[in-house]
């Protein structure tokens, strides 16, 4: 199973729809400070179902929606789609391409879609269970987390091993 593409629209600093294609190897993202690299990382986490605003560096969920800039007005919705190439049927679902979409409206309402049909968050977590890429898994590591993984409190370490079990 390969993450083949991510599309981001209205999430954090992405006022316009942007896409990033992955070739299955090593994709490197570069750019000056504050241009939106970690916002791409947050988009992947959020798209996989992350529910805790603090992990996404936001104080409340609605600060995830594009809030406006000099040349662009605030938007009413944030949307992220993750496209997976499922031709080897790792995901227990009968499609060759699986698209997981998450939306958030200013009203606070959320929406989850699987290949364009609305589903519940639970359907997405069940689908991604045991693949190692769910929101809780160890698939996104930031420099700040290095202190946690090695710290005395050890909860994070246990969670990492449990995830692999």
């Amino acid at each position: 199973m390969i993450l083949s593409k991510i599309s981001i629209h209205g999430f954090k600093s992405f006022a316009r729809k942007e896409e990033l294609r992955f070739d299955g190897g090593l994709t490197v993202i570069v750019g000056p400070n504050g241009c939106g690299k970690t916002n791409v990382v947050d988009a992947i986490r959020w798209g996989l179902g992350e529910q805790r605003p603090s992990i996404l560096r936001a104080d409340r969920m609605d600060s995830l929606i594009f809030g406006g800039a000099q040349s662009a007005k605030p938007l009413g919705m944030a949307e992220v789609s993750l496209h997976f190439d499922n031709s080897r049927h790792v995901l227990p679902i009968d499609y060759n391409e699986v698209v997981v979409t998450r939306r958030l409206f200013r009203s606070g309402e959320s929406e989850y879609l699987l290949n364009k049909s609305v589903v519940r968050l639970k359907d997405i977590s069940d689908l991604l269970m045991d693949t190692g890429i769910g929101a809780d898994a160890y698939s996104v590591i930031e420099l700040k987390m290095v202190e946690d993984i090695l710290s005395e409190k050890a909860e994070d370490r246990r969670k990492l091993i449990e995830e692999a079990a």
Partner: protein
Amino acid sequence: ARTRFNDVFQKVRTNFQETFKRFFRGGDSDLLLPEGEDPLEARIEIKARPAGKQLRDIDLLSGGEKALTAISLLFALYMVKPSPVCVLDEIDAPLDDANVQRFTRVLGEFAEKTQFVIVTHNKMTMRCASSLYGVTMQEQGVSKIVSVKFDDVDEEGEIRAA
């Protein structure tokens, strides 16, 4: 559940001893479950000793040694259960050039089973990319994604218009 956890724990432990030696060119490391406690509840202790040094409290390691130890543990987990996608955000920042070279070499070896997405400012890490993207804010406050060739990334980490 207990035998399953124990089984995975032992595998990760052996892998960690191996990846740690690879990154630190020697030294040794360990993951320990305190004797007599229930494996499902007990704290997991981590030990790390760089080559030629005494074993000391993990807090006494340097910034770079800590990052390298955490990366070794991460790869030990991937050897047990590869995650299809792994995202790393500036995890190479505290590493000196020699360790960045070791890090990117090991990444290359794992890239067969796991797809990596890496955010970095380090030119050596950029060179290992199979595809390179830039994020720019040509319109202030609005992010845009552009595809980039390595030569387009100038000194400033800025992306020349492709």
